[in-house]
Structure formats: C-alpha cells, structure tokens
C-alpha cells in the first residue's frame, strides 16, 4: 500500500464477503426447495423471494468488490491520496443501507418484479445518488492525479458507463415487450459489456503488479480486448431479443455477434497466460496470481464457451428459459466477476494489513475447493437443463412432471454447492486472519 486512503478498500471488501455468504445461504434455500424441502415458504422466504435475494446480492457484492477495487487501484495509478476519505466511508455505509433495505423489503412483497432489477423505484434513486458519489470521488482523484494511465481510464470508464446504463432500466413501459427490451440494456450491457471493462481494468492492474511485464505492452492488449468486447457484445444483446416479441432481424444480428463474443474472453485468457509466461519478476503473492489467471481462464469457459453453447437462435429456441441458462450463468459470473474480485482482494489484503500471508494452505484449498465445487454445480445444472429441454420441449411433457425427473440433479447440485461454500468459508477465514488494515503497512520507499 502506498497511500493511506487505499485502506477504505478493505471495508468494501469486507462488506462484499458478508453479502457473498448471504447470497450462498439463499442459494441453498432455493436448492432445497427444488428437491422438495420448501420449508421456509411459510416463514417469509418463498422461492421468488429467495431468488430475488440471491441474484440481487450477487450484484451488490460484486459492485462492492468493484468499488473497493477502484478505491485501491485509482490512488495508486493516479499517484495521490483519494480526494475525500470521509465521503468514501459515507458512500460505503449508504451502499450497505440501500442493499439491506432492498433485501429486507423483498421479504415483505416490496419490490419491482423485473428479473435482476427487483429493487423498488424509490431505492433506485438512492442507488443513483450513491453511485454518483462514488464516481465523483474516483474521477476527481483521477483528474487531480499525477498521471492518467490506461488501466485507470478503462476501469473508470467501465464504472461510469455502468452507472449510465442503469438508467434505461428505470424507464416505465406499458408493454412487457419493450419493458424487457430495455431491461436488457442494463443487464446484458452490464455483464457482457461495461463490467468487462471493469474486469479488464482490474486484470491489467494485477498483471502489471504480479508479472512485472511492461505497462505499455499490457495496456495495449487491454485496449484490444475491451475493443473486442464491445464490438461483439453491444450487438450481441440481440441474443436476448430472439423470442420476446421483437423483429426477426435480431435472430441474424444477435446470432452473428453473439458467436463472436467468446473471442474477447479467449483474448483475455491468452493475454493473461502469456503475460504470466513473459513476466520476469515473480511476485511472491502466489494466491493472487492463482485467482487472477483463474479468472481469465474460467471466464473463457463459463462466459465464452458455455455462452456460445446456447447462443445461436436454432439452439436457443429450445434452451431459452430453461436451466441451461442457469448453467451458463453460474460459471460465467463466477469466472469473470467473482474470481476477479477475489483476485484483487488476495492481492491487496497483504498490502493493506502488512501481514504477508502469501501462500497459506487454507488459501490454496479455498481456490481449489470453490472452483471444483462451482464446476460440479455447473455440470449439475447443465445435465438438468438438457434433460428439461429434451423432455419438455422435444417430447412435450408437462413442466411439473419434468421437474420431478430432474430432482436428483439438484441433490448433486447441493453437494457441489457445499464444496463450493467450504472453499468460500476458507477464503473468508484467510481474509479474517489478515486482520485490520494498518497505516504501518505503508511502503514508504517505493
């Protein structure tokens, strides 16, 4: 750590970990409901509540992680302290409060039931204020800084666009079709667009620090990768428009550009592995390196390959609205965004706390258990999804009969989820062991 204000990142990461654990709890509630143990239904957690909490906590813990990453990275890249540390803490607390209010509200039928954007409208405005405060702090710091690096610019641009793209989701529509159409402007253009900018920015920062490869080389490739992301991802939004009641033109446009989407992820994976090979300086923080390379590789498999597996209109006609989507969604989010947040935490934690626990055995076990668990969950969802598609959409069996046939896959899912959760708990144990951030961890001589 080079600047005192970077410490604020620690608290965003801590909030992030707390919300991740809650997300897993609600995931288990849903898993058990699927095998017939829907015991919390009467106690305020029917499936739709659990689902809204599960997906929204995912978004909030990742955003909290991204914000923490920005508060850590931007001062170091801009070579100055954050402009106002107190406001950063205000922003942290308000983020936590909005998140808690939304999650509690879902248990009392207080929501706006639009998949992924369930936060009710009054809270939406608070989210906007919160994000504006965050962006203000980051952008002013960058503006007043000694230098403006590409890494910092790409990261800030991703965060700025993510905020702007939240707005189309707040437009009111009478038609379910247009409602859905513009909802994807938020959801798709976030996860397959601007969030990749954020991921690219964090990845590039980590690779510069961990491999010692020249900044110019890494940043050039960063531009190529985010260029590929937008080139394919913007029109790739079309793969959500095939069957929701808009023109057939999207079958062609969405099909072609979606097919190109894996390229960005392939480039990201190749880039990370190559930089690692090229790197002469070997950083002692092996865990951070595991998570960084892991994020690049797993995101290619989860987001790139498994996305491609059902993105063509001919396949998607059968898989649209089935568990096949859940299969792709889980590994994609884990690889691309979950792992990159855990990577930046693993990298920055020893620097903020001064305790250099670079290669703990719990840390290594956390990496492998969570990844093996998540791959198992992906396979369970995938098999259940293919069974569902075949029985329901090819043979025309009734939905509920098919669901009974797939119960066994959810037993496997819960077992794998347990493995995954064990990994996450071990990661958090390591997090806790590092202790609190300390001013004594400042690296004066660098």
């Amino acid at each position, binding site marked *: 750590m080079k600047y005192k204000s970077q410490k604020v990142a620690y608290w965003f990461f801590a909030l992030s970990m707390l919300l991740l654990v809650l997300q897993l709890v609600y995931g288990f509630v849903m898993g058990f409901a699927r095998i017939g143990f829907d015991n919390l239904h009467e106690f305020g957690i029917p499936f739709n509540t659990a689902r*809204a909490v599960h997906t929204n906590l995912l978004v909030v813990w990742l955003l909290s992680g991204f914000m923490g990453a920005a508060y850590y990275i931007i001062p170091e890249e801009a070579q100055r302290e954050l402009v106002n540390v107190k406001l950063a803490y205000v922003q942290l607390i308000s983020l936590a409060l909005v998140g808690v209010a939304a999650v509690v509200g879902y248990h009392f039928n207080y929501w706006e039931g639009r998949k992924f954007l369930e936060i009710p409208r009054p809270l939406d405005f608070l989210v906007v204020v919160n994000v504006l405060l965050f962006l203000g702090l980051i952008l002013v710091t960058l503006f007043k800084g000694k230098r403006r690096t590409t890494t910092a610019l790409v990261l800030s641009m991703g965060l700025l666009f993510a905020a702007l793209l939240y707005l189309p989701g707040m437009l009111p529509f009478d*038609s379910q*079709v*247009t409602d859905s159409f513009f909802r994807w402007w938020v959801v798709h253009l976030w996860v397959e667009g601007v969030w990749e900018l954020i991921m690219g920015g964090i990845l590039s920062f980590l690779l510069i620090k961990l491999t010692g490869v020249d900044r110019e080389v890494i940043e050039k490739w960063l531009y190529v990768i985010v260029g590929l992301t937008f080139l394919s991802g*913007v029109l790739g939004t079309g793969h959500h428009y095939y*069957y929701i009641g808009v023109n057939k033109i999207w079958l062609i446009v969405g099909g072609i550009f979606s097919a190109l989407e894996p390229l960005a992820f392939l480039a990201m994976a190749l880039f990370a592995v190559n930089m690692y090979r090229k790197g002469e300086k070997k950083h002692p923080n092996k865990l951070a390196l595991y998570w960084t390379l892991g994020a690049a590789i797993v995101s290619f498999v989860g987001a790139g390959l498994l996305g491609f597996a059902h993105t063509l209109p001919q396949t998607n006609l059968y898989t649209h609205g089935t568990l096949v989507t859940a299969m792709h969604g889980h590994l994609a989010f884990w690889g691309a965004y979950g792992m990159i947040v855990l990577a930046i935490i693993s990298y920055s934690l020893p620097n903020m706390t001064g305790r250099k626990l670079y290669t703990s055995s719990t840390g290594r076990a956390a990496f492998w258990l969570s990844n093996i668990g998540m791959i198992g969950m992906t396979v369970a969802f995938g098999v259940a999804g293919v069974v569902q598609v075949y029985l329901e959409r090819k043979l025309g069996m009734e939905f509920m009969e098919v669901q009974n046939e797939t119960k066994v896959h959810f037993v496997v899912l819960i077992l794998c989820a347990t493995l995954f959760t064990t990994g996450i708990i071990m990661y958090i144990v390591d997090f806790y062991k590092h202790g609190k951030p300390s001013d004594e961890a400042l690296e004066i001589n660098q």
Partner: protein
Amino acid sequence: MLSKKQARAFFLGGTLVTFLVFIGLTIYSFSVENDQSNHENITEAVVRGKNIWESNNCMGCHTILGEGAYYAPELTKVVDRMNMKYDGQGEEVIKSILMSPVPWQPNGRKMVAYEMTEQEAEDMVEFFKWIGEIDLNGFDRIVSPLAKEDN
C-alpha cells in the same frame, strides 16, 4: 505490430460504430411496419395485470416470454393451455388459483397464496391473453405444442 494508439482507435471506433448500429436497429424494430409486439391491443386491464405481475415478482418463479426463474411453468400461452386441459374453463381455473386463500400446490411445489380480488384476477387473465398473442418468432410453438395450428 499494432501500436497502442491503433489499439485505442480500434476500441473507440468499434464501440461507437456498433452502438450506433444498435440504436438504429432498435428504432427499426419498433417502427410501425416492423413492430410485432402486439402493443396495439394493450388495454387498461392488461396494464393493471402487468403491474400486479411485477408487484408480486411472479418472474421469481415462473417464466414469461422465456424469461424468469425456471421454478414454475412458462405462462406465455397459459390461457390456451388451461382451456385445453379444463374443457374451455381455463380462465376460471387461473382466476381461482390467483384468488385462493391457501397455497396452490401442483405436484407438491408451492405457489404463494396471493388472495387476489376477482378484479385483480381478471386483470391478470387479460395480461396473459395479451401475452399469448405476441408474435414470438416460433418460440410459442416450442413452449406450447397446442399452439401449433395458430402459427
């Protein structure tokens, strides 16, 4: 090899061009002659139905137009399907499920007991009927084999 400046131009240029095309296609697909969203048949009852649909987060279990949570049945052609199953009494069956004071439990999987009023249940049915008439580029045939003759 590519220079950093060229890489940046590729990023900015690609983004700008694809985004402009995206806006253009959006305008194209909602223009009068290309619109297939059945919006001309939206009545006040349909809008009320949509609001009830959202305020109860029905998408947290069901899917509609293939979007939702895959825990409960796809409802795109639900009125037609229920009519077939219950000899033309589909609308009544749907309304009684929505108005029921106890959870509906098909095959043991519980639905929240919404205890809707007659009017609210009526609005929901109107919403489902409107959804059922949207041109979905063939998807409706897949989720409801009964819809084959209609398309």
